[in-house]
Every structure is written in structure tokens, then in C-alpha cells.
């Protein structure tokens, strides 16, 4: 055990001195996560929708609608510019200056058959859809109050009674509402998603620095020297695996702390995150060790591991939701990446250690199987 610790300490020191190792372990995943999160937007939408509104009515109903828009603008969900001329509004939408324009016709409050016109830019389907929905919701609200009042008043048609009923109906809350429970339903937000995806993707490169150096030591002759020393043969291999695990775990730990502190990622319950991260490190070490045991040179190991890391990352859904391709859906569960991201998803809704146990178990399974294969193969390698 003493020799294992001394050897692992030596390897860790070498790695920390090696700039490219630190780059791959921490700097690159963090920077890419930051770039991705910035590009793909930290909020629900990458930018506020740009709307214009033309009020041809200038009555209280139109004002109420503009007020709805203004309240959204205050929350930075939309930007609203007021345009006097409907033709100008259409032109702005046509040119892409704005995503959509609302034209509130004269008589919107009085003429029952009036229509709010929504002019959307064809290349901003989301913004246009949202605009249409905003208008529809407003209209639905108005209509439902009027319908309620008219239906309650019954015959004969008494405008004053209807008006009084309408006032009461307006205070009657609609019984059904929509709540966005994405955060509670185990769906990672963008920042956490990219932080986690990049962390686990690069983990498979980071752990290489431990096991693969066994090949370098063999080529460089230091393995022979170590084996001629009073060091148990198993100690060398154990030290290499330990180096991988420690280096991978440090990399994940730094990334988790850094993305939480500087990117606003929220990983979830610390204990559960630690369990997932630990299991992921073990799985990555096992998979990498198998590759190292098959390769003859360090370069060969490096390039095979790169191919494997890319492939597993892709199948595990690191770059995009692979499960949209039904044929590949099952494959995502054949990767530690898939389990890691899935496990973190469980935590997004406030889950605890218990919820991530299946993912932890699956990754430990990967680690056990690949680790066993690697140890059997590598035990031969530490004997010249």
C-alpha cells in the first residue's frame, strides 16, 4: 500500500506538471461548457423575442393587451416597440427587424367580430408561435368572460345585466392553469446540462493519464526498474489505476465547483452528485484501462481512446439527444455517459441518493466488468 501511494503520488505530480493534462482535465471542459451554455442560452430562450405593436383602437381593451406585453418586457422575455402604422409594422416583420407584429384593430373592445392580427417573420417560428399564443390567450380570456355573462344572463338580452355579470365573471378565476415543472421533473437546465456533458465527456480523456502511462513506463524502461525494486508487482498496476481515479475525481470535483460558482450550474444534492461522479470515474477508468491493455504503444492507446470517447460520448447523448433516433435509443444506456446524465437528471427535481442508485449501480457495473478485463490483461503487462 505504501508503494502504491508513493507511485500514485509521483504520477499525480507528473500530471499536474504537464500542462496538457490540466488543460484536458479542467480548462477545456469548463471553457466549452461556458461557450455552449452561452450560445445555447442560459434561459428558456436565447434572447428576448422582438415584437412590435400597433394600436389602432386606443381603447381600454387594447390598452390591456399592450399592458400584457409590457409586463413580459419587464421580465426580459420580449421587447416591445410601438409602431403607429400597421404597414410599417408588417415591413419590420418582413425584414426580420422584429420577430412578430401585433395589429390591434379599431373597435377591438366594441366590435365583436374584430380580429387581432399577428404578423410573424417566417424565420422566427418560435417567436411567431408565442406571439399568436399570447394574442389567443388574451382573446380567449375576453371571450370567455363575455360568453359566461351572456349565457348566465339568458333571455331576454339585457345589456346592463350582461355588463354586471361580466364584471363578476371576470373575477372568476379560470379553473385550469399550466405550470412548468421542468425543473422538478428531472430535466437539467441548459447550464448544468452542458457542464455535466462536457465534464463526463472529457473525463474519458482525463483518466487516460493514469493507466496509459503504464505503456509509457514500459517503453521508457522505468517499469523494469520498478519491478526490480522491492515493490510488489500488483502495486504498480494498482498505483496506475489509483492515479486515473484520483486524477479523474479531482477533475470532476474542480469542474463541479467551478461550473457551480462561475456558470450558475446546479448539480443537485452533494452526496448524490458525489456518488454519480465517483461511479463515473470508476467506469471511465475501467473502459480506458481495457483500451490501454489492448494497445501496444502510447500513441495507439491515445488514438483508440479518443475514438472510443467520441463514440461513447455521442451515443451517451453528450452532444445532442440521441434518443430522438429510435434505433439508437437503447444504445444510450450502453454508455456510462448516458447513465451519468440520466442520474443527474433525477437530481434536477431535488432527488436524493436513492434516486441515483440505479445509475450509480450501472456505472459501477461498467467499472467492474471493464476493470476485471483490464486487470487480467494488464497483470501480464507488468510482467515483461
Amino acid at each position, binding site marked *: 500500500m505504501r508503494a502504491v501511494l508513493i507511485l500514485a503520488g509521483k504520477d499525480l505530480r507528473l500530471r499536474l506538471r504537464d*500542462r*496538457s*493534462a490540466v*488543460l*484536458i482535465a479542467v*480548462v*477545456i471542459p469548463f*471553457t*466549452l461548457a461556458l*461557450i*455552449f451554455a*452561452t*450560445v445555447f442560452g442560459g434561459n*428558456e*430562450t*436565447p434572447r428576448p423575442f422582438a415584437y412590435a405593436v400597433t394600436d389602432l383602437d386606443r381603447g381600454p381593451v387594447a390598452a390591456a393587451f399592450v399592458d400584457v406585453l409590457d409586463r413580459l418586457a419587464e421580465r426580459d422575455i420580449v421587447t416591445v416597440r410601438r409602431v403607429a402604422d400597421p404597414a410599417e409594422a408588417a415591413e419590420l*416583420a418582413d*425584414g426580420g427587424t422584429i420577430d412578430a407584429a401585433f395589429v390591434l384593430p379599431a373597435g*377591438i373592445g366594441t366590435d*365583436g*367580430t374584430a380580429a*387581432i392580427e*399577428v404578423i*410573424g417573420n*417566417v424565420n422566427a417560428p*418560435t417567436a411567431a408561435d408565442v406571439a399568436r*399564443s399570447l*394574442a*389567443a*390567450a388574451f*382573446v380567449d*380570456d375576453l371571450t370567455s368572460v363575455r*360568453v*359566461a355573462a*351572456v*349565457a*348566465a344572463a*339568458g333571455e331576454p338580452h339585457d345589456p346592463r345585466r350582461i355588463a354586471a355579470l361580466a364584471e363578476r*365573471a371576470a373575477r372568476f378565476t379560470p*379553473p385550469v392553469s*399550466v*405550470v*412548468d415543472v*421542468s425543473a422538478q*421533473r*428531472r*430535466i437539467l437546465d*441548459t447550464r448544468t446540462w452542458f457542464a455535466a456533458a462536457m465534464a463526463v465527456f472529457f473525463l474519458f480523456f482525463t483518466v487516460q493519464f493514469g493507466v496509459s502511462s503504464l505503456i509509457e513506463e514500459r517503453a521508457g524502461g522505468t517499469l523494469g526498474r520498478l519491478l526490480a525494486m522491492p515493490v510488489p508487482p500488483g502495486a504498480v498496476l494498482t498505483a496506475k489505476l489509483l492515479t486515473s481515479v484520483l486524477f479523474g475525481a479531482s477533475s470532476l470535483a474542480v469542474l463541479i465547483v467551478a461550473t457551480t460558482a462561475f456558470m450558475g450550474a446546479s448539480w443537485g444534492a452533494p452526496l448524490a452528485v458525489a456518488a454519480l461522479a465517483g461511479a463515473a470515474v470508476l467506469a471511465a477508468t475501467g473502459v480506458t484501462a481495457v483500451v490501454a491493455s489492448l494497445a501496444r504503444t502510447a500513441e495507439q492507446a491515445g*488514438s*483508440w481512446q*479518443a*475514438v472510443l470517447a467520441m463514440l461513447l460520448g*455521442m451515443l451517451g447523448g453528450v452532444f*445532442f*439527444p440521441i*434518443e*430522438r433516433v429510435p434505433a439508437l*435509443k437503447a444504445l444510450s444506456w450502453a454508455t456510462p455517459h448516458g447513465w451519468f446524465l*440520466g442520474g443527474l*437528471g433525477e437530481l434536477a427535481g431535488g432527488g436524493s441518493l436513492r434516486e441515483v442508485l440505479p445509475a450509480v449501480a450501472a456505472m459501477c457495473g461498467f467499472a467492474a466488468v471493464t476493470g476485471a478485463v483490464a486487470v487480467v490483461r494488464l497483470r501480464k503487462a507488468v510482467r515483461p
Partner: protein
Amino acid sequence: MKALAIAAVDLRRTLRDRTNLVFVFVFPLLLVFVLGTAVGGVAVPRVGVAVAESGPLADRLVAALAAQGAGISVRRHSVGELAPAVAHGELDAGVLVPAGYDAAIRAGHAVTVEFVARPGTVGTRVGSVVRAVVGHEAGRLRAGLFVAAERGVPLDDGLRGVDGVAASLPRLSVSARTVGTDLDTGGRFDTTASTQLLLFLFVTALTASVALVETRRLGVLRRMLATPTSTAAILTGEGLGRLTVTVLQGGFMMVATALLFDVRWGDPFAAGALMLAFASVAGAAGLLMGSLARTPQLASAIGILLGLGLAALGGTMMPLEFFTPFMRTVAHVVSPHAWAVDGFTALGRGGGFGDIAVDLAVLLAVAVVLTAVACRRLRRELPGGTSRSALTRGAGRS
């Protein structure tokens, strides 16, 4: 001629490595296929609706969602599988109608319909549509409840009255239309193919710079100089080698995606020129990296960072239209990908050389500048160059 010989050696070294071949030719195509299938072009957002407890009112809501006509595909889903399916990306969003929906409404209680979506614009879009549909239903139910309360009748009678009035009452409506020129190029693989082309060309060129770093470290560069070969020939050869690999990859991807996935690249000559211009930038960037990095490991690490980072910033993973104006400016300042993406988008809309002239000019200018800087760096390492160079440091170690 000597330059060609050097380039040929370079090319052979790159192509001899089987892992390289996988990265250069197989992987990009695979990604185009998978990405195109998964998120390509005109994919219809998929929404799952799960009903915890069936009832006339709940079923009516589901029917209304299914009939929303906003270009969103809605299908029934099991309750337990809904959130995981969204979390894993199988669905873009999910709507859960809770147990006791009917009963609660009849009792006059407020009910919440749960909505889950992956973060992103698709989720936002689906969310707004779902809110509109539910809002419409909620309006009808409110009116029905109000009438029932006012007249002391059961809810169903109230709703009947409301429906009767709603059908006869002149009502405010929403008319929607879209304007502008449709930028969507149509094929589900089109955008994916051009963006993956850019991503991989750049990554390949940068990681190929590892070979140059090795050449420098092994002292092969010095040996070449010991032969009667001019510095210019060596640099041209090294640059040409980089460029050939990149252009081979680009040409292969364009032809293969056109044949396999029916990708329309637009005017073939203009598209070819654009690819060539971008390949020059990528090759020059690779040359610069190869001249700067001290170790191959460092070169490949930074290659991954720049290759993926600039690609993301340049709009190869999310259309530039979705960027804020500020980020769009940033993209065009730091990322050559942004200009190439603009160019391919223009060609996809049926544009020709005239429409991509600016993009071509910018890319070529960047390529020239990067090459010039790289050549200066490499020249300095050659004998007669200044000070302790990376070359002599590398040679001293061996």
C-alpha cells in the same frame, strides 16, 4: 516540386493511420446521419400527453391539444414514462393532466396541468402552444362554472349553455400570417451537413497540426533544411500537406452527403469555392498551431478546444439567427465558421458567387493572415532564426 514531395509525405503520414481515417471520413458522415435524423431541418416538435385519470373533461383537453394545428405532433403517452422521455430527449415536451382533473373542476377547485420541456427554443414554442390550448379550455370551463353557479345548474348544463352562446356570439379572433423570405433550405440533412462539414474540417486541420509538432520535435525540419531545399519550399510543402487533407475531407463529405443523404449544396462551383476558402483557413490555423505548440499533446488538446468552441460560437450547432445581436457580432469576429455558415446558408437559398463574395473574401483574408503569421513563426525556428526556439529545445531533448 520539393514542396509537393513534402506535402505528399505529410498526406501519406496522415492517411496511413487508420484511426485518422475514421476521424476524417467515417465519423463526420455518421454524425451527419445521426444528427440529421435526430434534430435535422424541419423536424416537427414531439409532445407527449399523459392523462393520469381519464374523464370527459380530461379527454376533451387532450383532443384539443391534438387538434391544435400549430405544427406540433401530439401523442398519448404513459404517465410514468413521460418525464423520462422528455429528459432523455425522446420527446421535446410533455403535458400531464393530473389525476382527479374532472372531479376537481366539477367541485370548483383549481387544477394545474403540468408541463415539462427540455430547455431551448422548441420547448418555449411548444409551451406557448400548450398554454394557448389549455387557456382556451380554461376559459370555456370558467364560463361554464360561472353559469352553473349563477343559475344553480350542474356544470354540464352550464357548459352546454356556454357552448351554445359561444357558437352564436360574434367573437373577437386572432388572425395570424407570416411574412418574409423563408430561410429554411428544406432537406433535413442540408443544414446538418454543412455545419458538420465546417466543424470537422476545422477539427481535423487543427489535430493534424500534431504531425507538424512532431516534425519539429524530431528534428526532421532541420534535416530537411540540411538538404538543398529552400525554407519557402518547406513551408509551402507543410502548408500544402495540411490543406490537401482538409480539402480531401471536405470534398469527400460534400459528395458523400449529396449522394447518400440527398443534401443540396447549391451552386456546386460556389459551394466548392466556399469549402476551399474555409479549408484554407482551417489549414492555416493548423499550420499556426503546429508552429506554436510545444508538445503534440498540447496541440491536440488545444485543437479540441478551438475546434469545438469556435464551431459552437460560429453557429454550427445553433443557427446564427437565434443569437443575440451582440453574440452574432462576437461570432463573426472570432469564428471563421460564422462566415462560412452565412455563405452556405446563402447558397442553400439558391444564391451564387455574388451572394457569398463577402464571405469568401473574409475567409481568404483570414487564411492569408494566419499563414503569414505561421510562416514567420516557423522561419524563426530555422537556423539563423532568432534566439532559443522551440525547435532547438525539442531537438535538445532527444
